[in-house]
């Protein structure tokens, strides 16, 4: 390096330019975070793939079993049909919840963007469910859905003579998934509301004025000014929420535990049941998560690119 300095006395050494001026301090400062991420995110990813090829059970040593777990999960008598059900449920659950949260969140944001007395209070109220721990939300709705007359939904329906039977919101196989989705929407739509509101505030007022001068009515203005202005925020919100919604076990665990008859079984719940609760087969549970991995990796990489887009 001495030679490099000598040959080009006016410039910084070659190695120094290649590594960047602050490389020593820079790497020193990022190292703790990198170490944690390597140990707690990268390594578990690799470990999940490795485990999925073993017969690892809780408290027992692992042996390599090749594709056995994948065969069991996809086609086995015990897991095959539940797995297919879980795929279907996960897709249905995620798509319906994300779609409803988007629409409701959009309505919320448009409403809260208007000017009216008490708007700040209204914002605070609308965003409240977002602040409540999801476990408490789940517990509370379990009580609201209670299948006896003590459940407020049944009580109201009976009092208003809209129904003369007690509806089993969480016990009826045809209703359970929808009941769970409603809870997910209840807690999730404030996040969309906030994100869309932030997006709305960034849309330039001049654009609306220009559109108004051009004679655009309220729907046209929404369609041609608001929506395009929100598309960047909306894409990120929806992708983020898709990852979180699909991977969340909380509501299902508390409300139904995956039942009745697996009608609310989604993949993380299934992985939990196979790996931790019932059979304690960590290998097979890993195989379940690994099967869903490619799909989420796609979303994660798409999102990462978008979130870093403005860095350059």
């Amino acid at each position: 390096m001495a030679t490099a300095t000598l040959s080009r006395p006016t410039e910084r050494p070659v190695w120094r330019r290649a590594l960047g001026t602050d490389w020593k301090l820079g790497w020193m400062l990022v190292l703790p975070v990198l170490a944690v991420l390597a140990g707690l995110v990268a390594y578990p990813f690799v470990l999940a793939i490795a485990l999925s090829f073993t017969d690892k059970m809780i408290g027992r040593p692992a042996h390599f079993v090749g594709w056995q777990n994948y065969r069991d999960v996809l086609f086995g008598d015990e897991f095959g049909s539940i797995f297919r059900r879980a795929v279907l449920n996960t897709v249905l659950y995620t798509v319906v919840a994300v779609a409803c949260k988007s629409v409701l969140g959009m309505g919320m944001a448009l409403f809260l963007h208007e000017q009216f007395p008490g708007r700040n209070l209204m914002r605070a109220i609308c965003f409240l469910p977002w602040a409540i721990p999801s476990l408490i939300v789940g517990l509370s709705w379990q009580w609201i859905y209670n299948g006896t007359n003590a459940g407020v939904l049944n009580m109201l329906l009976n009092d208003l003579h809209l129904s003369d039977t007690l509806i089993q919101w969480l016990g009826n196989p045809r209703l359970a998934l929808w009941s769970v989705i409603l809870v997910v929407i209840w807690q999730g739509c404030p996040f969309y509301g906030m994100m869309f509101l932030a997006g709305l505030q960034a849309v330039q007022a001049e654009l609306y004025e220009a559109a108004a001068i051009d004679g655009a009515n309220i729907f046209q203005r929404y369609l041609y000014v608001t929506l395009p202005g929100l598309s960047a925020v909306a894409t990120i919100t929806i992708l983020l929420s898709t990852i979180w919604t699909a991977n969340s076990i909380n509501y299902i665990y508390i409300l139904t535990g995956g039942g009745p008859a697996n009608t609310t079984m989604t993949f993380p719940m299934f992985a939990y049941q196979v790996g931790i609760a019932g059979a304690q087969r960590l290998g097979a549970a890993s195989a379940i998560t690994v099967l869903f991995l490619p799909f989420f990796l796609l979303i994660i990489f798409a999102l990462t690119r978008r979130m870093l887009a403005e860095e350059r």
Partner: protein
Amino acid sequence: MATLARPAGRTRARTRTRPLALKRVALLLTGLFFTLWTLGPIYWIVVTSLKTELQVYRQPTLVPTAVTFKNYQTVLFHSNFLLYIRNSLTVALVTTALSLVFGSICAYAIARLRFRGRRLVARAIVISYLAPGGLLFISLFELLTELHLTDKLAGLMVSYLSFTLPFCTWLMIGYFRTIPAELEEAALVDGCTRLRALIYVIMPLTLPALVVVALYSFTQAWNEFLYALVFISSDSQKTFTVGLIGLIQGDTLPWGPMMAAASLGMIPPIIIYVLAQRWVVSGLAAGAVKG
């Protein structure tokens, strides 16, 4: 003409009078809908927590005929609730403190220093932030078992770092970018070292941001459920989320005290949210959209 009808409202001045009345009704109805939709369930929880057992089960009414605090007494003094709360507090505080310290120095390096691999680190942080617990909890459980950290609060603290740390770092990168580089350069010219400039010049400026990031991180750790459910089994190590589940599954608590516990557990995040509310929208947008 519309300007005459409503001289006060600048934005509304452009719309005509008839749609204005329509708009008011629409706003009112929407407001009513969102209020009922949001506060309805919360009302029922709080109201249940104030009812006697008879009222909860036998004679349920929308408005309680008598108010009792017995349910709160049961939760606070005849269950492990306070122990669970203490565990939750410990875990959330430690996790937040660690994430704040290491996250902000890492964010500073990425936002301000020039070194090779900086972009790659930023990418790794975003990817980690997005990596969902639903995919990782099985192997994380195995990892913690190997390290003998399952069923310990320390294990929870470690595993919560996997999401609070990238989250804090990512938010802080955005905030550091908003601080003018000239400030720091001035300090460097005056003979400050990088580290001193960071501690004495930059950090005080990021203090408000640090508070917001701390609140977010605390809330995330406080609300976490999946890892606590999987990694913890002894009662003494349970956080309040898993603790409550144990109480309901063991039929230890009837719904009245249960809803009292739920009401109590809601309070810390709601207080935080009210405190941080004016930053919530802008902060979220900065973290998730702009960076």
